């Protein structure tokens, strides 16, 4: 559909693809994450969710456009701000979300962006559990993610293998109708809930996750799964009302 979508390793996307990097206190890693992204994407927007460690300055120095929340609101709110930004920039056709902690590979982001630019699906979801992903997920983490996946599959009836993967690509239509209102981590499932709700089409792509000590330390603790569950249950009740 676009000249820029040829799957050449040296591809660099123009402003039509916007990479959104929500970030909260990631000063040690976010700089290199953004530098790597900028080699393949010219339009990298970092949403700083009220970091207090100078992440904003590092991200800006690395070359990203930084949107800064003056106070910390939560991961879902940061994502929503990114979406809102995309909706105000008419050039953007595809928004790619990518975690700031370096657990995603840029090649995967490129592949997801290319897939989304084709335009036949609204949402391209990264999955670490597809056969080609090559990711060995640590035991406890695997259990937690599997439970979250079962829960989300039940509530959204989507046929997907990995519900809490930060690497995703959204076509403009998907960005328009995805309404992220939960501020915390439950937004990952809420984004998925928008898919059946608005009749969006979706496809999963295998992505590799680098489980570094850093990303494991920052990631969701087991008890947090319970919080995610509660947030979602409350949200479901609100919808039903």
């Amino acid at each position: 559909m676009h000249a820029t979508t040829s799957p050449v390793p040296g591809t660099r996307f123009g402003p039509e693809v916007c990479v959104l990097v929500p970030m909260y206190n990631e000063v040690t890693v976010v700089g290199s994450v953004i530098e790597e992204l900028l080699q393949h994407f010219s339009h990298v927007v970092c949403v700083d969710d009220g970091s207090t460690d100078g992440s904003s300055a590092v991200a800006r120095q690395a070359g990203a456009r930084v949107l800064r929340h003056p106070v910390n609101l939560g991961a879902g709110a940061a994502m929503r701000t990114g979406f809102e930004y995309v909706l105000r920039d008419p050039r953007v056709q595809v928004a790619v979300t990518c975690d700031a902690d370096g657990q995603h590979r840029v090649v995967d982001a490129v592949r997801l962006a290319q897939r989304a630019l084709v335009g036949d699906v609204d949402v391209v979801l990264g999955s670490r559990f597809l056969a080609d992903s090559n990711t060995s997920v640590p035991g406890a983490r695997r259990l937690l993610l599997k439970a979250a996946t079962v829960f989300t599959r039940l509530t959204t009836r989507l046929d997907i293998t990995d519900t809490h993967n930060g690497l995703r690509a959204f076509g403009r239509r998907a960005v328009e109708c995805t309404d992220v209102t939960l501020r915390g981590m439950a937004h990952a499932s809420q984004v998925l809930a928008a898919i059946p709700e608005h009749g969006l089409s979706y496809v999963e792509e295998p992505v590799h996750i680098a489980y570094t000590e850093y990303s494991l330390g920052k990631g969701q603790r087991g008890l947090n799964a319970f919080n995610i569950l509660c947030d979602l249950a409350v949200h479901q009740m609100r919808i039903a009302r």
Partner: protein
Amino acid sequence: MIIKVVLIAGIALAAALMMRGPAHRQLALRRMFGISIAAMGVAAVAWPDLTTRAANLVGVGRGTDLVLYLAVLAFSFLSMALYQRIARLESNITQLTRELALTTPPQQTTDTLATSGQVTRSA
């Protein structure tokens, strides 16, 4: 009795503070409600038999029990009202923060750095 003095003084103080409270949509209603609650409180302290008689009327054995039940109810409603109010405030803050993040001009635009190709970091 000393306790009666302490309790009635407390109720009077709380009622006085409420009178000066922040502007509210239904300020008059709120004040009337507050005054009547305070009056009932004073009456209950001054004549403890009143609560027991009221309790017997509605099928509760002791006045103290009735007061406790009503207090629990009041507390629940108050908590819910406060919870909803805080949720509304949070949502307002989120919208304000988002608007601020989106409208604050960046010190450096993406375009100038992006077109210069390789980006170096000196942090």
